[in-house]
C-alpha cells in the first residue's frame, strides 16, 4: 500500500507537469474548445462511478454510483460533441459565396 501511494503521487506530479507543458502551447484561439475538451476528459470520473454502480454493494452506494455515472456521461457525450462542433467552425478561407 505504501509504495502504491508513492507511485500514485509520482504519477500525479508528472501528469501535472505534462498537462502544464502541453496546455501552455494551446493557441488562445482554441481556449474555449480546450475547456470543453478537458471537461470531457475529466469525465473520466465515469470509471469510478461505473465500478461503484456495478458492484452494487449497498442500496446507497448503488444509487450514488448510478447518479454519478449519469452525471459523468452528460459530460462525456456533451463535452466531445460540442468541442467537435466548435473546432469544425474554425476555417482558414471562407467558402466562396457569390
Amino acid at each position: 500500500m505504501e509504495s502504491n501511494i508513492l507511485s500514485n503521487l509520482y504519477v500525479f506530479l508528472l501528469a501535472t507537469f505534462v498537462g502544464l507543458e502541453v496546455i501552455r502551447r494551446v493557441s488562445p484561439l482554441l481556449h474555449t474548445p480546450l475547456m470543453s475538451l478537458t471537461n470531457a476528459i475529466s469525465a473520466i470520473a465515469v470509471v469510478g462511478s461505473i465500478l461503484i454502480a456495478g458492484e452494487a454493494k449497498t442500496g446507497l452506494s448503488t444509487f450514488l454510483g448510478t447518479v454519478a455515472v449519469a452525471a459523468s456521461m452528460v459530460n462525456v457525450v456533451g463535452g466531445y460533441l460540442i468541442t467537435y462542433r466548435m473546432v469544425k467552425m474554425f476555417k482558414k478561407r471562407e467558402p466562396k459565396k457569390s
Partner: protein
Amino acid sequence: MSEHIIHFIYLASAACFILSLKWLSAVPTARRGIVVGVLGMLLAVGGTLLSPTIEHYHFIAAAFVIGTIIGVPMALMPMTAVPQRTALSHAFGALAATLVGAAEYSLRVPNLDRFTMGALTLEVILGALTVTASLMAAGKLQEVLPTRPMVFRNQNYVNLSVLGVALLLGVLLVVNPGLWPLFPIMVLLCLVFGVLLIMPIGGADMPTVIALLNSYAGLSASMMGFVLDNKLLIIAGALDGSSGLILSIIMCKAMNRSFTNVLFGAFGQLQMTAAAVEQKSYRSASPEEAADLLRTADSVLIVPGYGMAVAQAQHKVRELFDILTRQGTNVHFAIHPVAGRMPGHMNVLLAEADIPYDKLLEMEDANPEFPQADVALVIGANDVTNPGARHDKSSPIYGMPILDVDKARTVMVIKRSMNPGFAGIDNELYYLEKTLMLFGDAKGFVSELVKSLNET
C-alpha cells in the same frame, strides 16, 4: 489475467488523452485531437465494463441513457451560451466526483487509512463546493441570477469561517474516519461555501471563475484516482486541473488582478462614483460618414467585445468584413484575452460567423498593428480599450493590459450612448480628437455601414 489487460487498456487511454490535448494546440490538428480523445474515453469505459467486480449492468445502462439524453442537448446550445454550458458541465463533473467520494466513504468506513481518507476528503470538499459554485456561475451567466456582485457586511469573514469549519471537519475525519456524522455536515458546508464564493463575483470576472472551477473539478477527479488507486483517473484529473489553472492565470494576467482579488474583491461594486462629473466634448458621426472613411482605408482593425455578441451582430460584422476585403482593405480582428464571457469565447463566436481564423489576432500580435491601422473599429468593447489603464493610477483598471486602439489613425466606437459601461469606468478613448462615436445598436449600426458601403 483480465485485471492485467484492463491495466494496459487504461495505459493506452491515458496516452490518448495526452495526445488529444497536444493535438488541440493548433487548428489544423484539432479534429484529430478530438477523435483520439473519444478513443481514449471509449477505451476507459470499455476497460472498466470488463472489470470482474462488476455484477450488475442494468443500472449502468440506464445511467448511460439518461446521461446521453441530457448531454446531447447541452452540446447543441448556441455558441453565445457556451459559457453557461461549460459552467453547468463543471457542476456535473464535480457532482460525479462528490457522489463517488460519498459512496466510497459509506462502503469503506471505518477501514480507511489516513492517506486515502485525506484524498477522499479533498475530493469531496473540492467536488461539493464546485457543484454549487458552478451552478451559481451558470445562473449569473444565463442572467437568471443578478450579474452584479451580491455583497453583505463581513462577507469575507462569513465565507472564510464556513470554509474553515468544513476544513476542520475534514481534518477530524482524516484523524478518525469513524466519525461518520461529520461527513454529511462537511459536504453541506462545502455546498453552502460554493454559493457564498460566487455571490460577490461580478459578470466581468466570470472568465477567471469558470477557469478556476474547471481546475477544481479536475483536481477532484484526480483525488478520486488516489482513493480508488487508479492511475488513469489521477492522470486525466491532473490534466484537467492544470488546464484550468493555466487558463485562470492567463485570465488574471489579462485583467492585472490576483486570485485573491477576483475571489474576494467584489469588482465592479465600488466604482460607482460619479463618472459623468464633467461634460467633456466628443465627436460623433453618421453611418454614411463612417462608411466614407472605411472606403478610403487601407487597413482596418476591428475590436469586438461582448456587446457585439449580445446584440447578435457577428453575422453583420462578417458582411462588413466581406465588403471591405473585397474592396482590397486589409481587415483583421484584435481580440483581448478577456473578450467574451470565458477564455477564447470571442474567437468561437467569430468563427461561428464564418470569419477565417487567420484574421483573428491575439493582443500581443494586434498591438504592433494599431499604429499602422487607418481605422480601428470598436464594436461592443469598452474597458479593454481604455488608455487610462496605462497611466491613470486612480483608475480601477490601472495596469490592465489593453489593446492600443488609441494609436490607430482614426478610432470609431459603436456604442449605444455615452453612459459608462458595465464596470462604470469612464473611457478617455471616447474624448480623443481622433475618435468618432457612432451611436446606435451594434447590429443596426453595422447594417447601416454595410448598406452605405454597398451603395457605391
